C-alpha cells in the first residue's frame, strides 16, 4: 500500500504497552481503501471455507448485531456515497454496494430476510474485522465476532472470554494492572464518542490472515528471513482499532482495519525507518518473543542500521 496512507504506529523511540486510546476524529469507523475489492473478496472466501473460524456469536447478541449493521450501513452511505447507498421504504431497506456491484433488500430486524446473522452480513461489506463485546458487571465479554484477518489469535477459542482473560497471553499486561485499567476505561466509553488506537507487529510474508489455525502454513517464513530477503519479506502490520458504544444495547463494537507495509517501502521514509530501528533495538525481550519477531529480530535490526549508515554516508 502507499506509504502516504499507512498509519505509522510509533510516536516515540521506545515502545511499551500503554493505554494509547485517543478520540477518533473524525468519528468514522470504516475506512475504504484501494484494496477494498481484493480484501472483501478474500474475507468472503475465508468465510466460505472456514466459517466456524471466522464467525462466532451468542444468540442473545441479535439486537446488538442489528445495531451494528444499522450504524455501519448508515455511516458508509453517508461518508462514501459514491460507493454505497442505503434507501428505506417503511421497514424494507435496500443497500447498494457499488464497488462490488451488489444490491440487497431486507426487512430491518428480520434476520431471516438477510439469510444470515446481521454481524456476519455487514462484515462481508467492510474491510474491517468486527468484534462485539457486551458489558456484564463491569467486565467486557467477547460475545460475537467477524474475524478474517486475526493477528495470531483465535476467535473460536476466545469467544465468551472476558477482556482480562483474552489478554492473559500478553506479557506483563495483566500482572502489572494495565489490562484492568484499560478495561475500566473502555467501560466508560460513551455513545457518540468513539475512540481509536493502533496496534502493531511484524509479519514475515504478505498475509492478512495470520490466524493461529494456519500457523503451520505461515509461521515457517519467520525462520526464512535472511539479509538478502528481509526488505521484501518482512512487513510492518498495523491494526487500526476503533471502539464505539452502541446506544441501545450498550455493547462495545471494535472495528479492526489491518494494514501491511513492506519494510523496503517503509525505509524510504527515513524518520519511520529510524524510529522503527530505535523501537526494535529497545523492545523488551518478552515482547520480541510474543510478537513473533525473535527469529528475524537481529537480521532486521542489521538491515535498518545498514540503511541508515548508507544514507548518512
Amino acid at each position, binding site marked *: 500500500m502507499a506509504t502516504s496512507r499507512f498509519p505509522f504506529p510509533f510516536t516515540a523511540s521506545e515502545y511499551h504497552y500503554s493505554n494509547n486510546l485517543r478520540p477518533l476524529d473524525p468519528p468514522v469507523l470504516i475506512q475504504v481503501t484501494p484494496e477494498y475489492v481484493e480484501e472483501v473478496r478474500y474475507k468472503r472466501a475465508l468465510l466460505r471455507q472456514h466459517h466456524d473460524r471466522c464467525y462466532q456469536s451468542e444468540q442473545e447478541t441479535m439486537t446488538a448485531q442489528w445495531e451494528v449493521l444499522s450504524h455501519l450501513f448508515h455511516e458508509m452511505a453517508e461518508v462514501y456515497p459514491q460507493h454505497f447507498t442505503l434507501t428505506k421504504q417503511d421497514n424494507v431497506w435496500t443497500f447498494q454496494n457499488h464497488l462490488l456491484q451488489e444490491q440487497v433488500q431486507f426487512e430491518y430486524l428480520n434476520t431471516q430476510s438477510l439469510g444470515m446473522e446481521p454481524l456476519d452480513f455487514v462484515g462481508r461489506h467492510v474491510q474491517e474485522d468486527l468484534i462485539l463485546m457486551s458489558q*456484564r458487571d463491569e*467486565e467486557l465479554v467477547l460475545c460475537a465476532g467477524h474475524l478474517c484477518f486475526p493477528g495470531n489469535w483465535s476467535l473460536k*477459542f476466545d469467544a465468551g472470554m*472476558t477482556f482480562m*482473560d483474552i489478554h492473559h*497471553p500478553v506479557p506483563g499486561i495483566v*500482572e502489572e494492572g494495565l489490562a484492568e485499567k484499560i478495561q475500566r476505561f473502555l467501560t466508560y466509553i460513551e455513545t457518540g464518542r468513539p475512540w481509536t488506537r493502533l496496534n502493531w507487529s511484524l509479519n514475515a510474508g504478505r498475509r492478512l490472515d495470520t490466524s*493461529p489455525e494456519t500457523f*503451520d502454513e505461515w*509461521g515457517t517464513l519467520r525462520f526464512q528471513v535472511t539479509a538478502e530477503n528481509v526488505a521484501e519479506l518482512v512487513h510492518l502490520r498495523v491494526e487500526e482499532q476503533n471502539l464505539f458504544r452502541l446506544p441501545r444495547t450498550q455493547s462495545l463494537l471494535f472495528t479492526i482495519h489491518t494494514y501491511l507495509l513492506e519494510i523496503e517501502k517503509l525505509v524510504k521514509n527515513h524518520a519511520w525507518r529510524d524510529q522503527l530501528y530505535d523501537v526494535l533495538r529497545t523492545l523488551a525481550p518478552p515482547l520480541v518473543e510474543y510478537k513473533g519477531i525473535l527469529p528475524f529480530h537481529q537480521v532486521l535490526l542489521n538491515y535498518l542500521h545498514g540503511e541508515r549508515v548508507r544514507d548518512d554516508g
Partner: protein
Amino acid sequence: MMGDTTRWHRMMDDVVRIVIFADSDGEKHSTNIEAEAKIRGLQVDIRRIDGNMTGIETYLQAQPMGTRVVVCATRSNIQQLRPRFVDAGYGNEEVFFYPAGEGHSRVFCVGCYGINDPTTEATNVCCHCGRQLAVSTHYSIRHDAVFGSLTVPEQRVPTSEVTRIANSEDFACESIKH
C-alpha cells in the same frame, strides 16, 4: 476471573466478609488467602469442597449483602461449581476463582479444535489431527482447556523426543471435538 491478582486485591479492599471454597488441590492457596484476609480484618468462612455440595445455594443465599466468594479448586471443580454461584445470585464481580493444579488442564488444539487430555508437558501431539502443539497457560472456561498452538519444524523438539511423547500414556485421546 482466573489468576487476576489485581482484581483480587481490589475485591479485598471493598468487602468485610469472604467465603472461601477449597478442595484438596486448592488448600495451599486458601490458607494464604485466609491469612491475608484476616490481616485485613475481614470475616472469613472456609467451606470444604466435597461430594455434590448439597445445600450450597441455600448457604450462599443466606450470606449478608456484600459477601464475596473465593474458590480455590481444580479447574474441573470450578467448572462444576460456577453455574451454581450464578444460580445463587452471585455475579462475576462477586466470585473470584483461583484455579489450582496449573498445567493439568485439557488442551485445545487450535488446528482442528479437538480437545486433548490434560498434560503437564510443554508440547503435545494432538490426538485428533496429529500435529504438534505448544501448550500454553491461556485458559478458556468455555472449552475448559488451555490453548495449544501449532508449531513449525524450526520450533519443534527432536523427532525422537516427539515420538517418545506421542507414545507415552500421558497423551491418551479424549473423544471430544468441538
